[in-house]
């Protein structure tokens, strides 16, 4: 269990073909760090959803870069995604009601709903012409989880 902060970085072209690589980066960075699968999975889903939106809506499938910074300081793990797309503050969005669309057999808006529900916190900053979206998960009962993890 690391007491110090561990930081890893990944910079890739925002293309669909790199989504698997992004998830591998999260898996590798969080392996054996005491975070349960549920929390690792929450970050993988949130970052994938965010990058899918970025690729499609912000970069319009034309590429552009996304830089990921994984910052682990047990009992919290956070991933910041930096991009150069137009400003988009996810934290100002309400959790969408997808029920009506689903009744019609339609998807859409599920990504934002998933991110906001799975992460314990989401932060947004616009700095130097770049978006910094940070997805955070926290252990709710770190002592207990630590014990379970060490057994």
């Amino acid at each position: 269990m690391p007491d110090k902060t561990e930081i890893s970085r990944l910079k890739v072209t925002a293309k669909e073909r790199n989504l698997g690589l992004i998830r591998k980066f999260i898996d590798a960075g969080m392996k054996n760090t005491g975070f349960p699968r549920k929390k690792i999975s929450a970050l993988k889903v949130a970052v994938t959803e965010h990058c899918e939106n970025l690729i499609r809506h912000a970069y319009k499938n034309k590429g552009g870069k996304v830089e990921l910074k994984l910052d682990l300081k047990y009992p919290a793990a956070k991933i910041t995604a930096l991009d150069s797309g137009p400003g988009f503050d996810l934290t100002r969005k309400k959790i969408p009601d997808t029920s009506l669309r689903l009744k019609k057999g339609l998807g859409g808006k599920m990504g934002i709903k998933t991110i906001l529900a799975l992460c314990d916190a989401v932060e947004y900053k616009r700095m130097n012409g770049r978006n910094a979206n940070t997805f955070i998960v926290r252990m709710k009962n770190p002592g207990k989880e630590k014990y379970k993890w060490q057994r």
Partner: protein
Amino acid sequence: MVLEIKQKEDGKIIVVELYGELDSSSVAAFSLRFREISGKHGPVKYVLDLKALEFISSAGWTAFLNEFKQLKASGGDLKLAAIQPDAKRVYELVGINGVIESYETVKEAVKSYAR
């Protein structure tokens, strides 16, 4: 990881097995392959076996909804089986559980069509 899709038949029910990861990079391959299968068998009863599906994003769930909607409109049906726990959390969270039925095992999903 590449998405792999296999198909088998359990009586009159078509079971489609998904292996790997389903996100926006693999969703076109899923839809193409599923439509090949449904084009061959027609609007009958289908089960998607998700036991070996390691990851799914909203792009994947949307593809399932599209296929479900198309099948229902033409008299067929689609059910899900063996959703992995992390995916099941999202399935319930976004409310897909109110649209497409899911079962713990393929056997249970197949059996549910007999009811």
